[in-house]
């Protein structure tokens, strides 16, 4: 609560344009760093040559170019989009609940997506053989997305009372959903064969490894739309930080804002989780870091969290795919390893503000 509501020390905080400028630089730098890092040796100067040869349409492509265009580039884009989506969703949740502990994981969106994906892995082929044959790997993506969305609708429905959305109710329902998701996953783990168990486990740890242009383009479109819509909620959320009654007095349609925030969160987290598996911690850490540096203005927090989230995921993924090459570490492990130290360092530096 304090981080959002505190206005102490606002004078020394960085101005908005500077934070967002720094954020853009950070994203560009992490993109460059992760472009040039990977099991397949491609240096920055190779990339420059590649850029030139790309402009010549019918040139012969070297194998390095092919690897970059078909494997590394879609992966970078997916990392960028996933991080931005998760960062924005985290900021929206924390802003809406006016609670610094809020996280898309908290209202059960991630748990719903995970449970549905696990059902696709374990039961998909047995229960819906024809469907799973036609959809193939899309089956997993679609189920995860549907699972996240379904949980959001249920939670939102439960939290409605007398035309209002009760935030406390939503949190409690979210905790219940998480418990249900955990139990469901546990049961599916029991049912799963050895192979399914392995796929399930790796999926729960998250990875950008399966990035293909066709899927990445779709996810990128969804997340881009979510970011555009989410940024428009900055002003009403700023007003709501003063309390819902105050915000209503200021002319904010509180119900509408909450509804939009929930839908945007479900869409972006559902889409991201569906294509990457579970990537923890970004939605929680990114908004906090931005708030610590720049203060609680949602215009900065929302955009900044998306940028920081993207940079963190890109950097974590560069480490994940290079540290044990030619093998690869699960990304979920790395986001925590990269995110937590950054977070703790900031907490220490700005401890007066927490």
């Amino acid at each position, binding site marked *: 609560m304090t981080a959002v509501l505190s206005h102490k020390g606002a004078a020394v905080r960085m101005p908005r344009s500077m934070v967002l400028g720094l954020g853009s630089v950070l994203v560009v730098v992490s993109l460059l760093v992760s472009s040039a890092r990977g*099991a397949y040796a491609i240096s920055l100067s190779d990339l420059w040559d590649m850029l030139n040869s790309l402009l010549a349409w019918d040139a012969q492509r070297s*194998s390095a170019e092919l690897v970059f265009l078909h494997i590394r580039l879609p992966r970078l884009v997916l990392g960028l989009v996933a991080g931005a989506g998760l960062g924005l969703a985290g900021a929206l949740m924390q802003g809406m609940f006016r609670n610094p502990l809020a996280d898309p994981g908290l209202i059960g969106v991630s748990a719903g997506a995970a449970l549905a994906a696990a059902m696709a892995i374990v039961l998909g082929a047995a229960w819906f053989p024809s469907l799973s044959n036609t959809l193939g*790997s899309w089956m997993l993506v679609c189920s995860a997305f549907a699972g996240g969305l379904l949980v959001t609708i249920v939670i939102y429905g439960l939290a409605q009372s007398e035309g209002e959305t009760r935030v406390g109710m939503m949190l409690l329902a979210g905790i219940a959903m998480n418990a249900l998701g955990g139990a469901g996953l546990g049961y599916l783990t029991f049912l799963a064969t*050895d*192979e399914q168990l392995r796929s399930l486990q790796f999926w729960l740890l998250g990875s950008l*490894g399966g990035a293909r242009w066709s899927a990445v383009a779709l996810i990128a479109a969804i997340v881009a739309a979510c970011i555009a819509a989410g940024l428009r909620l900055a002003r009403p959320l700023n007003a709501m930080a003063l309390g819902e009654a105050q915000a209503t007095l200021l002319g904010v349609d509180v119900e509408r804002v909450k509804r939009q925030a929930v839908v945007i969160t479900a869409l972006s987290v559902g889409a991201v989780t569906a294509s990457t598996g579970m990537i923890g911690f970004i939605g929680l850490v990114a908004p906090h870091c931005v708030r610590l540096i720049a203060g609680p203005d949602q215009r900065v927090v929302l955009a900044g969290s998306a940028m920081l989230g993207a940079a963190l995921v890109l950097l974590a993924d560069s480490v994940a*795919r290079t540290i044990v090459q030619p*093998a*690869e570490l699960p990304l979920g492990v790395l986001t925590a390893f990269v995110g937590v130290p950054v977070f703790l360092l900031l907490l220490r530096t700005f401890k007066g503000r927490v």
Partner: protein
Amino acid sequence: MSYPLSTMQRRTVLRQAVAIGGVLSASAALPSLALAQSNPASASRSAKNGLPRIVSVNGAITEVIYALGAQAQLVGTDTTSLYPEAALATPKVGYMRQLSAEGLLSLKPDVLLATSDAGPPAVLDQVRSAGVKVEMMESDHTWGEVQRLVTVVGNAAAQQARAKALLADLNAQWAATQKLVAAARGPKRRVLFILAHSGTPQVSGSKTGADALIRFAGGVNAIDGFAGYRPMTAEAMAVAAPDLILTTTQGITAAGGIDKFWARPELELTPAYRNRVLVHMDALELLGFGPRLPATVATLHRRLLTA
């Protein structure tokens, strides 16, 4: 490397699409076009002998490659490739179900050899689309599986003659083993296989490698109520009434020795516990289903008779 006709046709179509189409079609078609124009695999053939460079993503496949004497072509293996010892020194591409496309391609292979449980599928697609031949082999726990493995690996490694010789040798070994098992008299022993590398011990139902192995060696699987590996309660184990417990050496080590292994409470109600009948063999040797299978079956058969 030559392309099948359909690919050639697609290439032509795609080229036209790019030539005619606007930005949209170009962005979708360009990747495939680029792939068709230049094939990284052909450029990466090992210069010395022109033989295909191989990544093996399965312990048994790696064993076949060594048995063929083709290890010079092996540029990477997965973490299940633990035998022979030399395989441990090859670059490791990770666990077979969690492969990394870039990591695999950085080894510049011509062929990726795997069993059908390798993945994730999206990564295999990526590797395929970068021009690497991906050979997937089904696993059905039969002798035919081993025969197929040798043939497919021999073809992929361009070592057909050696594969033929190896296959003849292995078939002879197998026939001898089968004869040995068929000649054994007396009632078949009820065998319970326990997989207990860590955590809850799992017992093998039908449709597992262990089940097939027990049958090959002339025993009876004490479990017939379910397929695959499942945790099992003490009561169910008592009902199964195995005469003999089969497990892996790694499992014994993980348990902290044979005495600690017998201390598991689930085992107490079994005939095997009363007589302390335990056979353990190296996990990869036992369940690998590679060229060592005839020897493994013969050893297990002997142990079933003498244990």
